[in-house]
């Protein structure tokens, strides 16, 4: 925090440019909800922001234990920011386990707001504390504010008439209210949300309102909090904004893509973390004509999407890592049948069940190569929550134009985190529609594998069309007729044709652009969700007076045509990835370059500081 200035006589209001706040508690404490409410209030206030929800895979790990800790971090700023912040400036903890799990991340001398009621012996033991950190001096280097949140919440909600276990449920809103006061957040958005959400549960609604206001009033009326902070609205491009998560961006992007392609949307999926929200969002959109199909398993979901594609719909299936593995046989069939289909993979930590609620970028090689036989397909990746919207449209454009399945990569971090999104002018969305094969009568047999000379795409002939009756399948196709063929030369020809078709897409995607310092010695090549941390890290290094070039990839297959030539201009190429070097390996193999691998596989996104440190290390050598 920077630049203190006294505004008020009773309390000091510090004006800060950016602040990162983390709410942490037990997974039953409603921390995700608290974070989301604070986020919305900040967005409406006009801050730029970025969020990072972090929660356990267990629905409900034992209360008060370390595995049960759930947290939500948000950075709010008066300027363009790219990440949820490396270290929280403020940490709100609801119990000892949350303190233990999160204290290590808190900035030195950062603010620590503690629900002191939870620091009794049983909870302390569960969290593994031998002594009470509130008394033993271990927190002396922080600005600690102890608040008996449970007692205060209990008193506050009494008039609502709520009884029993429900009483303490509202303590998350007490915490949000307190934070609203400290950070000068408007109250109305949260109160409106409570009214809407609990419209049918009067007692709960009233309890949450009371708790929220009590938290706010505590700040207002006690002298405990001498400081409030103001993060002024960010200087953002004019326009209408909303706060968007990546899964929501993906869902809406698919709807937009279907409209742009003039196709009905069919989304088949099997619930899996962290991709399920795409299914949830789309299943609400029946009035858009969206058909969602909750299949019996991942294989069925892929099969149903492919069946819908055969029928002339935009067939989409969404999943996360293990689900992609199950879908791979069907994707191979889609490659052989040359039908457009989108496979969304919201990557998570693996292998196997791995870290289902944590993020990773380790499915890139599976997306490119994880099939039997020679089975190339285009791969597109999203970089940020808002970018998921546009990536969905681009994946669809390629799928329909080239008659091919496309894998669309997102990840847990993109999917669940949020950022403000300047609503696009929908009239500017591209028209990506192409006609189906027209009816045919008496002109000889229909040739389902006759190719467009430019794109090498075959016609999309949908059932119900006169004269186009044809049979597709997984057995090798004879060029042109599509009849089953075991001819050795034909097989090789078809393998090369399918490969060429994907390669030609390179003529149809933008060239890679170097941003930041084009004339630097070092270039950072990134892809996917590392975008924010990489760029923020580069900015920090540039602020120190060093030059760094930046390249970010959307198309993972094929690569932009000039990628090798651009990278070869730099002495050193740094490739940071949340995997063990997937893109790094591809660049080496494709261009005979020797980039520097920077790998992180902790289930957590990169911090800007990590990128900064790595770059400084390179610059110093």
């Amino acid at each position, binding site marked *: 925090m920077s630049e203190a200035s006294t505004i008020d006589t009773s309390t000091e209001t510090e004006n800060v440019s950016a602040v990162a706040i983390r709410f942490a508690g037990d997974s039953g404490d409603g921390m995700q909800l608290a974070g989301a409410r604070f986020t919305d209030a900040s967005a409406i206030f006009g801050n730029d922001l970025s969020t990072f929800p972090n929660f356990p895979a267990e629905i409900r790990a034992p209360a008060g234990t370390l595995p049960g800790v759930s947290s939500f971090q948000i950075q709010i700023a008066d300027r363009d920011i790219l990440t949820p912040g490396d270290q929280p400036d403020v940490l709100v903890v609801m119990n000892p386990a949350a303190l233990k799990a999160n204290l290590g991340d808190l900035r030195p001398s950062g603010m620590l707001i503690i629900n002191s009621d939870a620091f009794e012996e049983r909870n302390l033991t569960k969290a593994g504390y031998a002594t009470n950190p509130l008394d033993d001096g271990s927190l002396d280097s922080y600005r600690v504010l102890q608040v008996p949140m449970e007692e205060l919440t209990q008193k506050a909600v009494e008039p609502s008439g709520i009884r029993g276990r429900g009483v303490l449920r509202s303590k998350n809103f007490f915490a949000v209210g307190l934070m609203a006061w400290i950070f000068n957040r408007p109250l109305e958005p949260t109160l409106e949300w409570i009214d809407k959400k609990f419209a049918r549960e009067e007692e709960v609604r009233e309890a949450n309102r009371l708790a929220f206001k009590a938290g706010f009033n505590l700040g207002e009326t006690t002298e405990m909090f001498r400081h409030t902070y103001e993060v002024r609205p960010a200087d953002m491009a*004019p326009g209408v904004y*909303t*706060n968007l998560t990546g899964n929501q961006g993906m869902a809406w992007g698919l709807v937009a893509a279907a409209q742009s392609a003039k196709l009905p949307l069919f989304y088949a999926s099997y619930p899996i973390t962290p991709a399920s929200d795409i299914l949830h969002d789309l299943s609400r959109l029946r009035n858009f004509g969206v058909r969602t199909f909750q299949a019996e398993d991942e294989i069925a979901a892929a099969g149903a999407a492919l069946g819908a594609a*055969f029928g002339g719909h935009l067939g989409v299936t969404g999943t996360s890592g293990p689900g992609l593995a199950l879908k791979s046989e069907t994707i191979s069939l889609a490659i052989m049948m040359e039908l457009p289909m989108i496979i969304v993979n919201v990557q998570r930590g693996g292998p196997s069940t791995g870290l289902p609620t944590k993020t990773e970028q380790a499915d890139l090689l599976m997306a490119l190569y994880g099939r039997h036989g020679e089975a190339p397909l285009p791969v597109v990746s999203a970089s940020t929550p808002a970018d998921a919207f546009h990536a969905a449209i681009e994946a669809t454009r390629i799928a329909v134009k080239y008659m091919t399945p496309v894998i669309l990569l997102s990840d847990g971090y993109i999917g669940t985190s949020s950022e403000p999104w300047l609503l696009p002018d929908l009239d500017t969305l591209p028209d990506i529609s192409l006609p189906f094969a027209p009816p045919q009568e008496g002109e000889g047999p229909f040739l389902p594998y006759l190719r467009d000379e430019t794109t090498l795409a075959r016609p999309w002939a949908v059932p119900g069309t006169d*004269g186009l*009756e044809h*049979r597709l399948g*997984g057995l090798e196709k004879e060029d042109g007729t599509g009849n*089953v063929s075991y001819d050795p030369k034909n097989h090789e020809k078809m393998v090369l044709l399918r490969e060429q078709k994907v390669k030609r897409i390179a003529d149809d995607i933008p060239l890679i652009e170097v941003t930041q310092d084009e004339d630097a010695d070092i270039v950072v090549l990134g892809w996917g969700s590392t975008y924010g941390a990489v760029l923020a890290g580069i900015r920090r290094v540039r602020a120190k007076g060093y030059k760094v070039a930046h390249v970010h990839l959307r198309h993972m297959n094929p690569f932009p045509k000039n990628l090798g030539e651009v990278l070869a201009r730099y002495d050193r190429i740094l490739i940071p990835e949340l995997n063990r070097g997937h893109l790094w390996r591809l660049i080496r193999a494709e261009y005979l370059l020797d980039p520097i691998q920077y790998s992180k596989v902790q289930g957590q996104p990169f911090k800007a500081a990590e990128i900064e440190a790595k770059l400084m290390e390179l610059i110093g050598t």
Partner: protein
Amino acid sequence: MTDTAYSRQDFQTDQEVRWCPGCGDYTILASMQSFMAGLGVDPKDVVFVSGIGCAARFPYYMNTYGLHGIHGRAPAIASGLAVSRPDLSVWVVGGDGDMLSIGGNHLIHALRRNINLKLLLFNNQIYGLTKGQYSPTSEVGKRTKSSPWGSVDYPFNPISVALGSEATFVARTVDMDRDHTQQVLKAAYEHKGAAFVEILQNCNVFNDKAFIRLTSKEERDINRINLEHGKPVVFGPDDEWGVVIEGGTARLVDVSEVGIDAIHVHDAQADSPAAAFAISRLSHGPTGPTPFGIFRSVERAVYETELQQQIHHAQESRGPGDLAKLIASGGTWTVE
């Protein structure tokens, strides 16, 4: 259906049919082509979807739209097609390995959802394409290349599986009986919802004469129990035997001993599948008297129709989807 007159030839493709000589699949193919031609089904509105196996080559030989898919997944692929295109007549063809082993999961879910699919299980109680291993319908003790000591697997009864999945249409026929096959296929075609048809099919290479007791002139009359809706379940050259159901279990009786009034009257339209299930247990694999015909044919909400209704209602109550409104629906703010 159209007014155009079709012949069997209109449903034949130029592809050489490559089943083993004498395979029961030829007869089923002929029955299918004849029934569709006779009914005036327009080939452009028909799609055959299959998995992997001998039976799965079926789509290549039908001059309709077709999709030869992957092992066991045909019901899933067909579900996506039927749900997105309720205007089409979608048929699934698979064998006992394809539909009951690798694809068992997809089969039961397609049936329970009542998706408008016609699912044809060609049951020859053996793996043909992979050359003669025991299948999920092979009898216990069957000696094959993969069970030289005799199979210890307990077999599925496909009709029981379908009824247990609460399929709304369940029938059994046999390849050799073309008339019966065509009748059953026609009824399946006209059924609204998922129709499951088991077609006993002779694999003359790996499991020849598995159903000989049901098809040979000498034995068929004493072993085929023809189910007819609304009629007492009797069989035999002079209808001398019959079926009674007691305590949920069906058993064979001599009609003259119990009297015709005690014989179970088949009700394919009964709401409960219990009686049909009891009848399906009479023969576990066609080793003795085996029920044939339509076990169950009831109406229940069809998946894709219900989904269409939801879309219709959503559009009526909320208006057609407006993307601009949607992306602004989560709360917005304006930066001047």
